[in-house]
């Protein structure tokens, strides 16, 4: 199959094959050139990179100070009150969990479906999952009244004979998120091993020592590849139910209470779809930025952004459908508290947020219909950033907007955020960007082995006087 796989100067594809130019897997590159193209931007770090790291590190440090301030003085330094017991922390928690969904979506689902366009972006997606989950996992700690007692939620034998309450959705959260974090980290690491070995063989000094340890002595024998593929196959299947369950459970934090507008059966699928929408959009945003910052135009091409943006659009349509189904029923039901909540949103104090949410979630769907928007990085960046503005606002309305109203009007309240909350939220955004930036300089951002593997499928064959790309089935 691989005979004459790499076309030489002599058999340049004729002009009629121009439509294949943008396809990465047909690119005329030797393996050594691909290795270099991935390793070069990783090793060379400019002044801009360190300025970025310093800036993000500063924001993280300020956020940590704010967290310390919060722990020292008490939750009162946030804007929470009765009845708005959960605010920006839980909102951002849901947001990060949502972001974390696209990594597995792209990687596991597309791996199972054998979609070839996933190859250069899986690593970026999996890393996004792991780091977004790390950021999300901070919030259940940050929002605790007594964070120093958080370990009481962990089931371990102890001499007080105390056990956590597995009826509580927060315990489901703990189990689901830790399972997902372990699973997605292993999944990220497994797929990394061949590339770490590649980096080990092409770098020196401290990097070589680091990669030698991390590559676990990978040699690339047939038995090793076989085991790797089997492990990835198992993980791809096993992680899909986990990723569906995680956001369902997050939605049940709200849906199992009898708070009006939270108590809804559609919340679980609605949250999952919303998570995929915002996660895929965030992935597109990140890829556009990383592509430019690390000069990866070679690997992240129009075809990838096109396919990814189509997925974003489809997820957006699903989100709209689920949102409408939920909203219609609640609006039609016309129960007093629900009516009050909907009025607050549609024509009351929350109206600016509500219309921002609708505009920022719906306009990108329309924009992404155009192929020009899907394949132009700048336009795609705008559209996908807009999606996440919309999805954050959506979570804000669900958490804070809903809690401000309840069954007894005397218990209604208003929430105003404080600098402590905003600093901590900014801290996790900066922390995510910082981890991601450092990660992209330490491990190969583009999964080299997956690209090389994908290229095995494609051959340029001469049929008569034409060079035609042909694809073969590989395992």
């Amino acid at each position: 199959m691989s005979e004459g796989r790499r076309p030489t100067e002599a058999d340049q594809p004729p002009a009629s094959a121009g439509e294949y130019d943008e396809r990465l897997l047909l690119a005329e590159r030797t393996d050594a050139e691909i290795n270099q193209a991935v390793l070069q931007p990783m090793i060379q770090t400019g002044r801009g990179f360190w300025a970025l790291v310093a800036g993000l590190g500063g924001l993280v440090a300020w956020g940590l100070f704010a967290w310390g301030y919060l722990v020292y003085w008490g939750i009162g330094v946030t804007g929470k009150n009765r009845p708005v017991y959960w605010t920006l922390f839980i909102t951002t928690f849901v947001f990060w969990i949502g972001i974390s969904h696209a990594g597995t979506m792209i990687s596991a689902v597309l791996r199972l479906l054998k979609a070839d366009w996933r190859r250069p972006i899986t690593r970026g997606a999996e890393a996004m999952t792991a780091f977004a989950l790390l950021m999300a996992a901070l919030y259940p700690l940050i929002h605790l009244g007594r964070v120093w007692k958080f370990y009481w939620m962990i089931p371990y034998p102890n001499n007080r004979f105390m056990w956590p309450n597995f009826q509580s959705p927060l315990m489901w959260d703990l189990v689901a998120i830790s399972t997902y974090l372990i699973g997605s980290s292993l999944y990220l690491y497994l797929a990394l091993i061949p590339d770490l070995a590649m980096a080990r063989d092409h770098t020196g000094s401290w990097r070589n020592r680091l990669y030698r340890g991390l590559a676990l002595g990978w040699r690339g024998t047939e038995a090793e590849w076989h085991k790797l593929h089997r492990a990835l196959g198992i993980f791809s299947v096993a992680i899909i139910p986990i990723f569906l369950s995680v956001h369902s459970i997050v939605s049940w934090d709200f849906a199992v209470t009898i708070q009006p507008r939270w108590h809804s059966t559609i919340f679980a699928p609605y949250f999952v779809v919303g998570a995929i929408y915002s996660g895929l959009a965030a992935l597109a945003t990140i890829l556009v930025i990383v592509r430019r910052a690390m000069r990866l135009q070679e690997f992240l091409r129009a075809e990838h952004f096109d396919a990814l943006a189509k997925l974003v659009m489809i997820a957006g349509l699903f989100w709209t459908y689920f949102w409408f189904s939920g909203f219609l029923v609640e609006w039609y039901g016309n129960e007093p508290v629900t009516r009050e909540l909907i009025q607050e949103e549609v024509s009351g104090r929350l109206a600016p947020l509500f219309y921002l949410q609708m505009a920022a979630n719906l306009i990108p769907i329309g924009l992404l219909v155009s192929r020009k928007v899907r394949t132009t990085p700048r336009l795609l960046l705008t559209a996908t950033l807009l999606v996440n503005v919309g999805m954050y606002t959506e979570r804000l309305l669900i958490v804070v907007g809903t809690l401000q109203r309840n069954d007894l009007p005397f218990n209604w309240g208003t929430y105003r955020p404080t600098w402590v909350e905003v600093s901590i939220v900014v801290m996790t955004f900066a922390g995510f960007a910082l981890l991601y930036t450092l990660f992209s300089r330490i491990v190969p951002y583009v999964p080299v082995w997956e690209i090389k593997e994908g290229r095995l499928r494609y051959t340029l064959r001469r049929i008569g006087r034409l060079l035609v790309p042909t694809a073969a089935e590989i395992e």
Partner: protein
Amino acid sequence: MAQDANHLAESGPRWGLIVDLDRCTGCQACVVACHAENNVPVAGEKQAAYGRWLHWIIIQRFWEGEYPNVKARFMPLMCQQCGEAPCEPVCPVYATYHNPEGLNAQIYNRCIGTRFCGNACPYKVRTFNWFRPEFSEPLTEQLNPDVTVRSRGIMEKCTFCIQRIRRAQLDARAQGREPADGEIQPACVQTCPPGALIFGDLNDPDSRASQLARSHRAFRLLEELGTDPAAIYLKGGETNV
């Protein structure tokens, strides 16, 4: 109408509080008594205005009508001690649980402050210690030794003065008898000048609380939610202020 069948079947007491809305004048004596009895900190004007008061019982005031024909309606609201409490299953560490006498007990030392119970409670009667509780000077001299002074970062709420229930039970047992009806009085009941609050065992059909609970005026707050509260309100007529 007072109790569900499963509670009638139990042999032990089920404590209930009757609130006669016709008698309540909105004087707030119960609120003050509760603060003194249960070491409830005073949040201060600014914090209270932001919805951070810590009262375990509060007089909710609803205005009816337009000026000049305005009526004020008062409704004392405390923990309803639900039989099917929405706050209980959501706590990840069992800091709130159902005790055998039907009370929703709150274990301050166990609470880690997720505030999930506060969100789950439809009556919003659970309060949170936003800061380290402070008692200004003369108040520090009158803290009740029977009640824990809570720390910051935990939830608290009305307990039906469980320390008074226990004391009365112990006194009665020392004398070889059961506590008599009316012997147990939470601080709010004891202090209520018009006698709008009546406390008693709803499982004892002869107790005064039980008799009032069978009144045609009796109703329970947000009963449609199925929380099975142990606080029973007696409908008020026209109260003009």
